């Protein structure tokens, strides 16, 4: 299993005050999407929750980050991207033994397309656009998951 050394690429700026913000300070997030508009939106949404996501524009860049030792708790993965798409990238990451939470965020809402994507190894798959409710849900799931991992 590939483990990140300190994961310096995912260090966070902490905002003072809000509980919500402080409770998320140890979580690292990677946004993978080829549309700069979506990258900007997701980045902003996540920052509101006290997260400081790293952002890349295709699946290959995401995989490369893991190969050089970075690690992230949560990956938001677009489906349609050039170079390496979300399905391929997810399969690759799972083959590498990465068990971060990978969440598909796709603009293709067809059941069968979401199923395909799920089968590549996603934990969840949502239709774009990302909403604060979805993020809240994911952060809860992430906290549950981290609790489970700590109790092993």
């Amino acid at each position, binding site marked *: 299993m590939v483990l990140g050394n300190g994961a310096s690429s995912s260090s966070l700026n902490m905002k003072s005050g809000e509980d919500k913000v402080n409770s998320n300070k140890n979580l690292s997030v990677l946004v993978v999407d080829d*549309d700069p*508009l*979506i990258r900007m939106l997701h980045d*902003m949404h996540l920052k509101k929750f006290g997260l400081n996501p790293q952002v890349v524009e295709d699946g290959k860049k995401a995989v490369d980050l893991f190969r050089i030792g970075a690690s992230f708790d949560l990956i938001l993965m677009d489906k*349609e991207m050039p170079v390496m798409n979300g399905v391929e990238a997810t399969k690759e990451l799972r083959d590498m033994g990465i068990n971060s939470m990978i969440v598909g965020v796709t*603009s293709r809402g067809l059941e069968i397309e979401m199923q395909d994507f799920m089968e590549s190894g996603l934990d969840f798959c949502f239709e774009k656009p990302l*909403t*604060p409710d979805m993020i809240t849900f994911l952060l809860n799931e992430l906290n549950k998951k981290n609790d489970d991992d700590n109790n092993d």
Partner: protein
Amino acid sequence: MDVVNQMQRQFVDYSTSLHREGILDDQFTQLQKLQDENSPDFVVEVASLFFEDCEKLINNMARALEQQGVDFKQVDASVHQLKGSSSSIGAVQVKNVCIAFRSFCEAQNREGCLRCLQQVTHEYSLLKNKLQTLFRLEQQILAAGGSIPVIE
């Protein structure tokens, strides 16, 4: 103070009318909510990105439809992207035209596609105009020392 109140009322009225006319939907309101003191230009930046995207995509579609042998897959790819961006920013009319546009691409109907291209160009221009007006109203309020009201 009176002047600022008047401007604020104008802003709220204008914003509400855009929603009522079905030009913008709740996604746009979400965007406005994401803006704060740390990112005071967020909505303007996202809108600018969107306008750039639109122009590029519309050009791509126009060029592809001009070809002797139209590559409908290529046109569809651009329409798909535009549909994604427009739904993320809350541009309902643009998104709706994209939905119809995709059907024509699938049916390889050039005439239908050209009509949709015309429509999407029209809706985009209309939206751009309206948003620029909205932003101007915001600027007026800020210049007069007031704050932008939050639209629920």
